[in-house]
């Protein structure tokens, strides 16, 4: 049984179908890539899964339970965490507090301060930001702010992690480090769904890829299958085919 599943998920913005009738399955432990041209509905799909917005129709189940209609904090506490396309760190709070917040509130039930500190410390260590713990989050580089978001999400002890364009705006070295981080998260046994435009990262890190275009799913499969898919080449790599 898939750990995360969507059936007929649909959401309109005005008359525009941002996500229309999308079915998806995410298997436990996999790294699923979500790609598509700008405006394809990738982030909207993330927002629908994490309950930032409510679908107009369709159902999303997580660990066999329907989660449509729940609030973001409930979904987070069930074990589904996310990061944001434009970083949303708590800029005027210390790096450690950013992560502590996830540790304190991201799980069901009472979390003791000692437990939260240990979890936050581990998460910071995992993404390699321990040395910045006392700095204000806004003073970090973009790459490190993105890693901080990952640490905050990991501190909530998720089973599924949604990464929204973690590598956007990073330089080559930072992209490599980010790819390494995704592999480490995967090795921890956490299921990852990632939106990405950096093809190198998608092709090497993801076990499976799903392609969205104009809000609809147009292809799905291994990186090789997707790269060879005719429809995908038309809509996604279309410019190159014309040239």
């Amino acid at each position, binding site marked *: 049984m898939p750990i995360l599943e969507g059936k007929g998920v649909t959401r309109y913005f005005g008359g525009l179908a941002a996500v229309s009738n999308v079915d998806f399955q995410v298997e436990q432990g996999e790294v699923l890539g979500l790609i598509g041209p700008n405006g394809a509905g990738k982030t909207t799909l993330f927002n629908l899964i*994490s309950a*930032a917005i409510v679908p107009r129709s369709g159902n999303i189940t997580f660990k066999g339970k329907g989660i449509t209609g729940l*609030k*973001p*904090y409930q979904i*987070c*506490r069930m074990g589904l*965490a*996310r990061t*944001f396309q434009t970083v*949303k*760190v*708590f*800029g*005027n*709070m210390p790096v450690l*507090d*950013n992560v*502590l*917040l*996830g540790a*304190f*509130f*991201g*799980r069901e039930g009472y979390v003791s*301060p000692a437990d*939260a500190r240990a979890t936050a410390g581990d998460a910071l260590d995992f993404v390699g930001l321990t040395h910045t713990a006392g700095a204000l989050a806004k003073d970090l580089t973009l790459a490190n702010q993105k890693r901080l978001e990952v640490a*905050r*999400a990991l501190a*909530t002890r998720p089973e599924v992690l949604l990464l929204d364009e973690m590598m956007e705006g990073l330089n080559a070295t930072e992209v490599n480090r980010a790819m390494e981080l995704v592999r480490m998260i995967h090795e921890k046994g956490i299921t990852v769904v990632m939106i990405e435009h950096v093809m190198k990262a998608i092709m090497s890190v993801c076990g499976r890829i799903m392609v969205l275009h104009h809000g609809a799913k147009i292809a799905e499969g291994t990186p090789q299958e997707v790269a060879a898919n005719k429809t995908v080449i038309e809509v996604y790599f279309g410019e190159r085919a014309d040239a």
Partner: protein
Amino acid sequence: MEKKTSKRVFAIGLTLLILALAAAVPVYAPVYTVILITSILMYMIIAVSWTIFSGPTGYISLASAAFFGAGIYTAAILGSAVPLPLVILLGALVSSCLALLVGGLTLRLKGIYFVMFTFGLVELLLHFILWWEVTMCGTTGRVVPPAGNATVFYAMLTILVVLILTVFLIRRSRYGMALQSVGENEEAAAHAGVHVTALKVVIYSVSALFMGAAGAAMATRWTYIDPRIAFNPLISFVPVLMAIFGGIRPIYGPIIGAAIFTYLEEFLITRFPYYYMLIFGIIMVVAILYMPDGLVGLTRRVWKRMSRSRHAHT
């Protein structure tokens, strides 16, 4: 580390000293001073409890007068039936229940909409109670059984001490951290597991708790109240200005702001009765323009510059 603990001991010592001095005021000071300090304490309570919620979240609430007035009316209605501590406690409860209700309805609103609604609430309550008193009771005002000046003074002091302890507890707790994260980025806080709405509503009602208590205590000193006195819009604005003037972030910011402001008002009103509002306004404009972090922030900046130049000489 050692420097930090000695600083803390100093702060606690200083606080206790100020408290002891304050507690002795009714014993040795003239009545005028006692009354003046009572109203300073009242403003301190409202300004500090305003910052509990509005400081970290950035939701500017102008409903202070409504919560304060709810306390006043509780005292006016129950005043003669129950002893003063209970009156204050009930005033606090009534006003925090009001905040729960209002918060639940309005904390979905953001920015200017929230500000407008909270201010509208003051007017709404004012006119509702005015209508009620006129149609149901046939009068507009009520007499509140007076408590002595010293009693009200001690009541205010106690409320302020409890308030300061509460602020410390909240700030040190995970909820203080969560509240700050809501101010930083509400969406991210929600996706990190914070039940944002519940948190905001509860903290909002905690801040109203103390405003209501202050109102109930103050009513027993004013002895006559009517809706226009109880729901005076200035009570919504002035404490906000005090908090901004003093500095919102550190807890002593609004305390210092309230003390200076109240004293300044008293001073100007007696010396320059015709110009006092004008002078007051100019001071406020200058404060907002040149002291973004309030008096406390300004002092820190000056202190830093001074210590830097001292280092430069050595």
